[in-house]
C-alpha cells in the first residue's frame, strides 16, 4: 500500500480535472489525444494510487516515471497546481519507499558506472585535448550538459558563438560533473542533490564570471546553480548589442523550430532577428528536452512516434529547416535518423549549428 505525504495528497486533491494541462502535453498529442498519456491522467492516477483506488503494478510504476518531462503541463493549470512538480515529488516518494521502476534501472546503473545517467558509453569533451583542464576565472564557463557531449559539432558551435560574446570562454571539459537534473526527474532526490552539490563545488573552484549551460534542464531545475541557458544568454547578448545577427542569403527560409520547453522562447526571438528567416507558428505542445531521455531509452517506439508526428506537422507546413533548439533532442533525433541531415525535404539542423553562421 502506497502512502504519500499529507501535503502531496492535499495538492493532488486540488486537481479539478479540467484537462488544461493536456492542452500543452506532448505525450497527449502524440498519442492522438489518448487520455492515459496526458498530464491530467498522470495526476489523477497518482491521486487514485494515494487513495488506494488502484493497484501499483510494475506497468503503472513505469507509467508514472515515463512522461517526456517537459514541464509544460504547469503552464495552463487554472488552479495553479505545479503539475510537473507533483509528478516528480510522487516519483521521489515512491523511490523513497523502495518502489523503483525497472525502466529507470539502466539510468541509475549508467550514473553509477559513468557518472552520467544517459550512459551510451559517454566520453565527455571529445572535441578537446584529452588532458584539457578548464581555466579559472574565465568570462564564461561553458557547462555543456551530458547530451551535448554526444554531439561534438553542436558543442563546438556553441563555444564559437560564446567566444563572440566574451573572449575568454572556458569549457568545463572532460571532467564536467553531472548536474543531477535527469536524476531529479526520475525521483532520485538524494543522488540528484549529491550531483548538484558536486557541480556547485566544481563551479566555485573555477570561479567564472558566468556559467552558461548547453542544456536547459539543469539551468531551469536548479536555479541555485545560477546558470544561464545558452539561448537565453545569446538572446541577452543580442539585446545589449554585444553581437549582431547576419541575414540569410536566400529569401524566405521557413523554419520549423522545435523549441526547448525549459527556455522562455529565446531561440524564437533570436531567429526573428535574422533577416529572411521566417519562423513558423507551431502548436504550444511541440518542444524538446533532455527529460525525454528515459522515454528515448526505455520506449524507443514512443520516441519515434513523437518524432514522426512532429516531423509530419513540420513537413505539412512546408518548412525548409527542421531546427532543434535543445542539443539533447538533436542528438536523439540524429540517432533516429541515423545521421541523415535531410528528412522529408527539410534540412535537419541544431539551433547552435545554424546560428553560428548567422551571428557576427
Amino acid at each position, binding site marked *: 500500500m502506497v502512502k504519500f505525504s499529507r501535503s502531496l*495528497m*492535499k495538492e493532488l*486533491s*486540488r486537481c*479539478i*480535472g*479540467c*484537462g*488544461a494541462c*493536456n*492542452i500543452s502535453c506532448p505525450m497527449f498529442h502524440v498519442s*492522438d*489525444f*489518448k*487520455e*492515459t498519456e496526458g498530464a491530467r*491522467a498522470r495526476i*489523477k*492516477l497518482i491521486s*487514485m494510487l494515494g487513495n488506494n*483506488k*488502484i*493497484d501499483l*503494478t510494475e*506497468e*503503472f510504476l513505469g*507509467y508514472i516515471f515515463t512522461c517526456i518531462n517537459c514541464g509544460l503541463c504547469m503552464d*495552463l493549470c*487554472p*488552479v*495553479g497546481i505545479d503539475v510537473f512538480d507533483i509528478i516528480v515529488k510522487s516519483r521521489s516518494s515512491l523511490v523513497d519507499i523502495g518502489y523503483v521502476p525497472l525502466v529507470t534501472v539502466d539510468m541509475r546503473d549508467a550514473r553509477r558506472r559513468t557518472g552520467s545517467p544517459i550512459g551510451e558509453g559517454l566520453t565527455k569533451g571529445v572535441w578537446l585535448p584529452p588532458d584539457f583542464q578548464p581555466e579559472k576565472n574565465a568570462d564564461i564557463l561553458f557547462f555543456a550538459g551530458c547530451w551535448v557531449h554526444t554531439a561534438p559539432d553542436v558543442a563546438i558551435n556553441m563555444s564559437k558563438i560564446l567566444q563572440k560574446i566574451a573572449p575568454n570562454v572556458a569549457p568545463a571539459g572532460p571532467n564536467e560533473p553531472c548536474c543531477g537534473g535527469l536524476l531529479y526527474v526520475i525521483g532520485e532526490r538524494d543522488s540528484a542533490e549529491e550531483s548538484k552539490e558536486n557541480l556547485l563545488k566544481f563551479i566555485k573552484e573555477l570561479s567564472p564570471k558566468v556559467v552558461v549551460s548547453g542544456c536547459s534542464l539543469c539551468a531551469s531545475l536548479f536555479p541555485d546553480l545560477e546558470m544561464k541557458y545558452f539561448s537565453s544568454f545569446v538572446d541577452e547578448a543580442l539585446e545589449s548589442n554585444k553581437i549582431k545577427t547576419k541575414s540569410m542569403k536566400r529569401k524566405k527560409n521557413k523554419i520549423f523550430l522545435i523549441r526547448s520547453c525549459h527556455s522562455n522562447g529565446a531561440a524564437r526571438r533570436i531567429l526573428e532577428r535574422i533577416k529572411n528567416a521566417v519562423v513558423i507558428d507551431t502548436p504550444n505542445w511541440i518542444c524538446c528536452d533532455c527529460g525525454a531521455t528515459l522515454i528515448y531509452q526505455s520506449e524507443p517506439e514512443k520516441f519515434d512516434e513523437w518524432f514522426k508526428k512532429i516531423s509530419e506537422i513540420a513537413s505539412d507546413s512546408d518548412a525548409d529547416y527542421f531546427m532543434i533548439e535543445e542539443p539533447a533532442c538533436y542528438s536523439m533525433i540524429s540517432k533516429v535518423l541515423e545521421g541523415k541531415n535531410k528528412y522529408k525535404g527539410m534540412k535537419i539542423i541544431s539551433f547552435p549549428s545554424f546560428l553560428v553562421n548567422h551571428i557576427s
Partner: protein
Amino acid sequence: MAEEPAIKAVEEIASQLGERYVLIEDLDRSAYSYDASGMQYIPSAVVRPVELEDISFIIEVANKYGVPLVPRGSGTSLVGGPLPIEGSIVVDMQMMNKILEKDEYTGLVRVEAGLRLLDLNKVLSNRFMPINPDGMGFSTVGGLIAEDAASPLSVKYGTTAAMVLGVEVVLPTGETLLVEQPGPPSKRNILNLLIGSEGTLGIFTSALLRLPLRPESRIAYKIEMIDISDAVSIQTAIKRANISIAGFEAYHNYKELIGEKGAEAVSFLEVSGTKECADVWSSKLRSIFKEMDIPFEEIDTEEADSIWERRKSIYELAKRRKSAMRVISLLVHTHLTRDAIQEIDRTGSRLKLPVVTVFNPLLGWVMAIFLYDPTDEKEVKRTEKAIFNVIDRTIALGGSIGFGIGAGITKITSDMDEGFVSIFSSVKEALDPNWIMNPGKLIER
C-alpha cells in the same frame, strides 16, 4: 473486472477496429473514469473510433450484448456527462477531429464531433464560436452540442443550438441520420430534440455549424451592485431601453473580485456590433447606470474576454482558496434571480460551506459554486446535501437545472419538468429500447 457481456462486446469491437483502438487495461480504464465534475466511475473498456463506420459497428455490437455506451469528448463536463456510471464502454471521440468543409463567406463549417474548440476557432479567420464552456477551448464540438452549452455571451449569440444547422448522428439502433435545416427553422424541432440530449439519443459524428462574425466594435463595463436586486432592476431597464447586450455576468460573494467596498455583487456587461451601434448602446447603458446610481467603469476587451471565458474565473476561485468545488447550474425566471441567489446563500450558511454565485440576470442563469475540502469526508457529504437543497429550492421557484452545462448525473425529474420528462422518456424508449446510450444521465429510466 468487466462483466461477461462487456468482455464479449469489447472482443468483437477489437476484431473490427483493431486492438490499438480498444483499451481494456486498468490504467486506461482508470484514465477515462473522471471528468471535471469530481466524480469517478470506471468503464469496462474504452473504444477510440476514427470514422463513422466504427461508430455504427460499436453501437450494433453494444445493442447485441446490451452493453451501455457513453460518448466522451475532452472530458470537461462539470456534471459527469461522459462518466460511465453503469460500467459502460466509453466511446472516446477525440480522434474524429477533421474539418470536412468550410466557407469563409457564409461562415459555414462542417466538422467532426471530436474537434476541439481551440481548433474550430482557427478554421475561419473572421468568425468564432462564442461559446467556450471550459474557458480554454479544450471542449469538443460534440460535447458542446450534446450539452447545448451556453456562455455569458449567450445573451447575444444564443446557446450552442443557435449555431448548429445540422448534425450527423448514429442512433442507438445503429442507423445513421443526417438531420439538417439549412433554411428558416420551420422544422427545427427534431434537430433541437437532439441538441442538448446529453448523449442519450445517439452519438454525434459531425455537425454543420454557422459561426458568427467577430464584432467590429466592443465596449465593456464593470459595475458594482450594492444590492443583488439591482440585477433585476438593471435587466428590466436594459430591456425597456431596447439595448442589445452581448454579454452579462455577475459575481456574488466573490470577494476577490468584488473587493472591500461592501457591494453584494460585481458585474460585467458588453455591447458589440458595428461601431455606431456599440456607441449608441454604450451611451444608453451609461445613462441607465447614472440614473440608477450604479458605480461603473469601462474595461478593456481583454479583461472582458477573461470574464466571458467564465470557467477561468471560477477555477481562479479554487486556486485562491485552495479548495475543490462543486457546481450546479440553474435557470430561473429572470425576475426571480435574486430569490434563487438568496436560497443559495441560505444553504451555504446553514451547511457552513463557502458558496459563490455566478449569474446572468438577462438569462436568469444562476450557477452556484460550493467550495469544500475534498479530504474532509464530512464536508464532502455536506456539499452533496447543499446541491440537493439548492435543487429543491429552485424547483419551488419554478426553475430548472442543467442550463448551459447539462444536467448529467443529477438528472431532471418529473417534479422539475413533468412535460419534458414524459415526452423525452417516450422518445428515448422508442429510439433506444435497451437504454444503451449514456444511461443514468439527464432522465431516470
